[in-house]
């Protein structure tokens, strides 16, 4: 838009091709710009419900409107000389148009306030929209008008909703203000313009939110949308880029980053307006330094030209820009550099083709294209001359001070040196450098530091500064250095980026060596023998000063004598040679380092051999699967299965058949019969385990009831009586029982000894408030007993077919032993219950001993022990006949059970008699009577407690697991719970951890059958359990992610590195813990899991890493464009959960694996 501005302003001063066609085209373009901005603004309004006044969309729209209004304005006729903005126009029409009068008044009012702040505020503001054109006094650039005041009147008119009317007024009275061929005067375009603005004038504009929160808070959705809207051409994920994206050769990527992210792009490829705006202090870049009349000698120009040098701090880093005065002023002639201009014209032909990219690539800029056709292409050349250097690409800053001027040369990491920048004398160079140094903080610095060097000369002595006296003065040696500091001298500063400190350190040492060894050797030999790139690049920039060796100001290698010219050409040639060598070396060095990183960090992550992809287009279809199955139902081609699954997944219909193989539950090559047997065995095992914990569950339930009853009672009591309750409340309460001690003072955390005390006291002292209640409890437990029995019965039907289970017996024996020992050692426990326990156990122990001594003979006795120890009485009854080798049926085998019950009951009863209190008795009896309780007596208290804890957690989480998914009805949730409990019962040491439910759910959905799902889950957990807090895998994953990103997407890595917290990668936590279960929809979870399982055998054992990386890469542009930090990214991905394009992500993940494989193979 400013480009267009420029154009029409230029039309006053330049002979313009008067064909009407370009002007129509120009109008078209102007209108298109307005259309685009209106569209953007409306979109913004739709997505956000309101538009913020400081939004970039508003500014852009105002700019577009301004451009339209400025075009063809009869400035001279209206007396609007030299005012670049249309503000004056507004004031002019205010007489005739009431809307304009209103806006005009507001503008004046608004201008009044800031005018007091800066004297020239009012004057400067109108010029703000078109900085390149208006004349600027030196230094005025430093104080920039805030963005709000740009296009002030249009802005105000827009917010006041008067803009459309004002434009309409202008259009209807166009002949008064505009040239005949102006846009506004055009019958079509004029009305289009005014009607376009009706929409934006109807919007809500708000100032309520601070600009920062306006930009940082958009939800993930909107970010992605915005990205799609704005980026017609999506930056391909870096994955698609050449692999060697190492940091040091980031030019290309950092360029596009700076242009897309910060809007401070080069004039190349972005509009002139953007460029000019980028010279100002704006929202994306802070202006650190600006200086007029800094001379730079662009290529193809023989004399240095004055221009405006500025240092900007953008999000990506520091950027140095230099713009020729001609561009800044808009007028070329008055600077007395016609000579150089003429030369420019001579090189025009080449410049236009090669360097004036603005003409060739920016289609919006018709003006330039048109101009280029003509003989003079002054603007183009100036654009080409303007300089933009990203400081993060600069490695060295060479400073050559001489009597006449101070020159500064920037040397890029690729060894290319930029044209020398000549500062006027008088400390300007120094102030620029100090600004640069400040700007580099905190992540970078100048080496050696600027100020310490100035402060004391010791730095020189240490040789830290690679100061290089001029050759003619070499002989003077170190002692005279201080002298030179003031008058003349060459200094080299290195820009150190802390992020690459290690590399720097290495280079540093190389440099030191190179510099130290041949201090007096003539340059050329040194250069030819130089082996380090850094040295050669340092050498290369010594050339310009050498031109000033004979006392000439080192402004430029301007030849005064032909002889010197020849010498300087020779020098230039050698410089080029060195540069070429240095580039090659740099490339090689970086490549070597890169590969060593790759090898150390990544070789373990992927398999070395690449499995070909051919023939996997359809994945593992049912037809293919059947064809792989032989007549016995065996599948032998496991590699092929894995390969197919890896590349294309499994057809959904056969997933339930294939998954057991993938998880290693079925063996490849097993026949149908074998598998059926395996299943049966698995089911039996499962039922057994389940019956074990079901009994414990019964105990837990009972205790819970007691606890609830007690607390409810306490609560109801609290409402009645006050005093005792207060005491109760004050004291600490134990985890899973209702024991509250009434005689304890309010203690925060009681000592262990007190614990013991309480525990023994408990049954007597605090036992429940009312008998009724206990009766209730008892009734409850009896009911429950029935339930359990019913359960047991149904289980029986399953188990009848079961053969024998030696493990079970062994386990239970071991259990008794352990418990007995535990109880004996502790000698205490849960008061009454435990005394009953020990009674039982003692009794058992004798049986046990005998059974161990004479296992064969005492099979009957052993039955009893089994019965007691086995949690499920019924099960034991049915299982024992087989184990004893007898043919007893189920019903006779119940008889020992009865005996045992009696025994235990009598034990309990006998114990009861010892108890002083009556209240406890029902409790004890209930323990004895219920089979669950009687068996529970054998389980240690800790066991029950720990299972209870797990059980409660499981139930909480099972209820919450995927309840929006229709599969999880109550019945299936029960299955889920059973699987979970069974697993936890088998792994009580690790216990239940949140997230396990999520891992079981898809397996259950797929397999439907509890036992098999449980078996698969157990296998899944073999790998996954390390991800949980008890394992170490998560940290390893984070570290691997780090390395992977560093190597595959260094740009992203830089961003993450800039935010230190990123290193933790916590946003990946859930991904890894649940294998992306929460990130994807069910259907996609299936595919992702298959991929992970199959990848283990095909490409990588750490497929999760690559999927994670693929997710990250999918949104890399959004992340980069918004420079998200640690929290932003967590929020972003949490909001994006279940909305990813899974198939794209998975295939990207495979590509990433391949990429790493190729990288490693290429070593």
């Amino acid at each position: 838009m400013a480009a267009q501005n420029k154009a029409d302003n230029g039309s006053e001063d330049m002979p313009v091709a008067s064909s009407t066609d370009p002007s129509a085209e120009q109008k078209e373009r102007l209108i298109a710009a307005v259309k685009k901005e209106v569209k953007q603004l409306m979109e913004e309004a739709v997505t956000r419900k309101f538009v913020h006044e400081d939004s970039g969309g508003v500014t852009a729209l105002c700019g577009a409107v301004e451009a339209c209004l400025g075009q063809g304005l009869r400035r001279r006729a209206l007396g609007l000389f030299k005012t670049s903005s249309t503000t004056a126009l507004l004031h002019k029409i205010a007489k005739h148009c009431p809307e304009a009068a209103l806006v005009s008044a507001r503008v004046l009012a608004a201008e009044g306030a800031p005018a007091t702040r800066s004297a020239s505020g009012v004057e400067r503001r109108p010029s703000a929209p078109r900085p390149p054109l208006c004349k600027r006094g030196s230094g005025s650039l430093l104080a920039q008008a805030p963005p709000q005041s740009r296009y002030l009147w249009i802005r105000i008119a827009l917010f006041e909703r008067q803009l459309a009317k004002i434009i309409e007024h202008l259009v209807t009275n166009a002949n008064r203000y505009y040239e005949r061929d102006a846009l506004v005067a055009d019958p079509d375009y004029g009305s289009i313009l005014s009607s376009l603005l009706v929409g934006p004038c109807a919007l809500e504009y708000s100032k309520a939110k601070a600009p920062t929160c306006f930009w940082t808070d958009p939800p993930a959705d909107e970010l992605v949308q915005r990205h799609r809207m704005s980026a017609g051409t999506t930056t391909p994920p870096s994955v698609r880029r050449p692999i060697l994206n190492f940091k040091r050769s980031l030019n290309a990527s950092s360029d596009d980053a700076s242009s897309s992210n910060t809007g401070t792009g080069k004039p190349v490829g972005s509009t002139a307006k953007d460029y000019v705006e980028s010279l100002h202090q704006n929202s994306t870049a802070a202006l650190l330094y600006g200086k007029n009349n800094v001379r730079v000698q662009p290529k193809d120009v023989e004399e240095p030209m004055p221009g405006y040098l500025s240092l900007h701090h953008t999000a990506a880093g520091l950027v140095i820009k230099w713009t020729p005065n001609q561009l800044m002023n808009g007028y070329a002639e008055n600077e007395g550099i016609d000579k150089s201009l003429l030369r420019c014209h001579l090189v025009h032909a080449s410049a236009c083709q090669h360097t004036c990219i603005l003409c060739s690539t920016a289609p919006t800029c018709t003006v330039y294209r048109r101009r280029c056709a003509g003989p003079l292409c002054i603007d183009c050349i100036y654009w080409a001359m303007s300089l933009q250097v990203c400081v993060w690409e600069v490695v060295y800053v060479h400073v050559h001070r001489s009597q006449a001027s101070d020159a500064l040369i920037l040397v890029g990491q690729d060894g290319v040196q930029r044209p020398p920048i000549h500062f006027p004398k008088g400390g300007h160079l120094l102030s620029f450098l100090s600004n640069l140094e400040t700007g580099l903080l905190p992540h970078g610095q100048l080496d050696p530091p600027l100020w310490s060097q100035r402060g004391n000369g010791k730095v020189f002595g240490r040789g830290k500064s690679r100061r290089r006296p001029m050759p003619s003065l070499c002989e003077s040696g170190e002692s005279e250095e201080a002298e030179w500091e003031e008058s003349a001298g060459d200094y080299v500063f290195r820009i150190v980026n802390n992020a690459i400190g290690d590399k720097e350190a290495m280079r540093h040492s190389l440099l030191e060596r190179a510099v130290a060894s041949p201090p007096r050797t003539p340059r050329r030999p040194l250069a030819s023998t130089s082996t380090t790139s850094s040295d050669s690049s340092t050498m290369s920039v010594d050339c310009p000063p050498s031109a000033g060796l004979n006392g000439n100001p080192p402004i430029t290698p301007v030849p005064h004598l032909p002889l010197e010219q020849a010498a300087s050409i020779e020098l230039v040639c050698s410089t080029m040679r060195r540069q070429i060598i240095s580039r090659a070396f740099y490339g090689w060095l970086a490549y070597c380092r890169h590969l060593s990183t790759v090898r150390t960090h990544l070789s373990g992550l992927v398999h070395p051999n690449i499995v070909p992809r051919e023939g996997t287009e359809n994945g593992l279809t049912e037809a293919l699967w059947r064809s792989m199955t032989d007549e016995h139902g065996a599948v032998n081609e496991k590699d092929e299965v894995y390969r197919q699954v890896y590349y294309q997944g499994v057809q959904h219909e056969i997933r339930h058949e294939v998954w057991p193989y993938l998880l290693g539950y079925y063996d490849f090559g097993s026949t149908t019969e074998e598998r059926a047997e395996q299943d049966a065995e698995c089911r039996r095992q499962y039922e057994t385990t389940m019956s074990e914990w079901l009994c414990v569950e019964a105990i837990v339930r009972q205790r819970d009831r007691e606890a609830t009853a007690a607390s409810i009672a306490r609560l109801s009591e609290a409402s009645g009586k006050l005093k005792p309750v207060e005491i109760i409340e004050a004291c600490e309460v134990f985890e899973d029982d209702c024991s509250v001690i009434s005689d304890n003072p309010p203690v925060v955390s009681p000592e262990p000894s007190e614990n013991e005390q309480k525990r023994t006291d408990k049954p007597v002292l605090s036992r429940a408030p009312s008998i009724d209640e206990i009766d209730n409890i008892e009734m409850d437990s009896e009911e429950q007993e029935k339930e359990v029995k019913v359960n047991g019965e149904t289980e029986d039907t399953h188990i009848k077919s079961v053969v024998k289970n030696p493990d079970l017996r062994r386990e239970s024996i071991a259990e008794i032993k352990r418990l007995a020992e535990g109880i004996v050692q502790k000698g205490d426990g849960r008061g009454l219950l435990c005394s009953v326990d020990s009674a039982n156990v003692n009794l058992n122990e004798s049986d046990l001993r005998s059974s161990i001594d004479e296992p064969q003979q005492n099979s009957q006795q052993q039955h009893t022990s089994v019965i007691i120890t086995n949690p499920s009485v019924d099960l034991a009854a049915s299982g024992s006949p087989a184990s004893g080798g007898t043919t007893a049926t189920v019903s006779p085998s119940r008889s020992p059970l009865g005996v045992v019950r009696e025994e235990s009951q009598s034990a309990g009863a006998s114990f009861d008699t010892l108890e002083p209190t009556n209240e406890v008795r029902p409790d004890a009896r209930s323990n004895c009577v219920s089979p669950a309780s009687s068996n529970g007596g054998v389980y240690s208290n800790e066991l029950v407690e720990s299972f209870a804890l797990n059980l409660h957690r499981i139930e909480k989480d099972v209820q919450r697991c995927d309840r929006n998914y229709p599969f999880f009805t109550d019945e299936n949730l029960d299955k889920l719970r059973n699987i979970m409990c069974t697993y936890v019962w088998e792994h009580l040491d690790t216990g239940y951890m949140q997230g396990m439910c999520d891992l079981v759910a898809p397996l259950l959905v797929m397999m439907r059958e509890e036992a098999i799902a449980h078996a698969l889950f157990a296998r899944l957990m073999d790998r996954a359990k390390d991800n949980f807090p008890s394992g170490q895998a998560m940290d390893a994953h984070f570290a691997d992610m780090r390395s992977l990103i560093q190597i595959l997407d260094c740009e992203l890595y830089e961003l993450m590195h800039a935010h230190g917290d990123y290193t933790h990668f916590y946003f990946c936590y859930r991904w890894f813990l649940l294998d992306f279960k929460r990130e994807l929809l069910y259907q996609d979870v299936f595919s992702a899991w298959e991929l992970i399982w199959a990848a283990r055998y095909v490409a990588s054992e750490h497929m999760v890493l690559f999927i994670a990386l693929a997710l990250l890469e999918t949104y890399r542009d959004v992340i980069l464009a918004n420079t998200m930090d640690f929290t932003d990214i967590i929020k972003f991905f949490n909001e994006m959960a279940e909305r990813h394009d899974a198939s794209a992500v998975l295939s990207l993940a495979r590509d990433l694996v391949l990429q790493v494989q190729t990288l490693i193979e290429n070593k």
Partner: protein
Amino acid sequence: MSSRKKVLLKVIILGDSGVGKTSLMNQFVNKKFSNQYKATIGADFLTKEVIVDDRIVTMQIWDTAGQERFQSLGVAFYRGADCCVLVFDVTAPNTFKSLESWRDEFLIQASPRDPDNFPFVILGNKVDLDNRAVSAKRAQQWCQSKNDIPYFETSAKEAVNVELAFQTIARNALAQETEAELYNEFPDQIKLNANDNSRNRDGDNCAC
């Protein structure tokens, strides 16, 4: 200027699993209740802008996993917190009992500058349920014993007291924040103190 500066308050919600942390957060931020929440894995946060004493502040509310085993993960999130919300379920006494350990754990992990005066707020959630097992009095007493922590009985489901509670949270967090700002505004003062301390220590050393 400082009053117009945007303030970000970091609030951490802690408590046993299933007490309703996620629900409370969503009720406050999005004004809606869902019974579809899953167990939180890892951590999530929502932001909301509230007006406290004519200042617009952004609350960044962090919701964490409830199982204490995942606390090691929380450390990264605790840092820089301005307020900590401890939630328990009034129908589950155990969740009330573990408040103590949540509080201690937080103070250890987050290591705020002034642990004694770090703002906590206790929420007894699920008061809409009938089977209440922790009396308000009991909770209140506990809160009083802990340096008078504000206590609210909330129901995320029926939006009882949620707004009020979070207003208090914001206010207390802001007080904490302003205090921190005050500290930062006078770095010299701190420096001087530091010097004094070191001098004192030197003196001690000499005496030894």
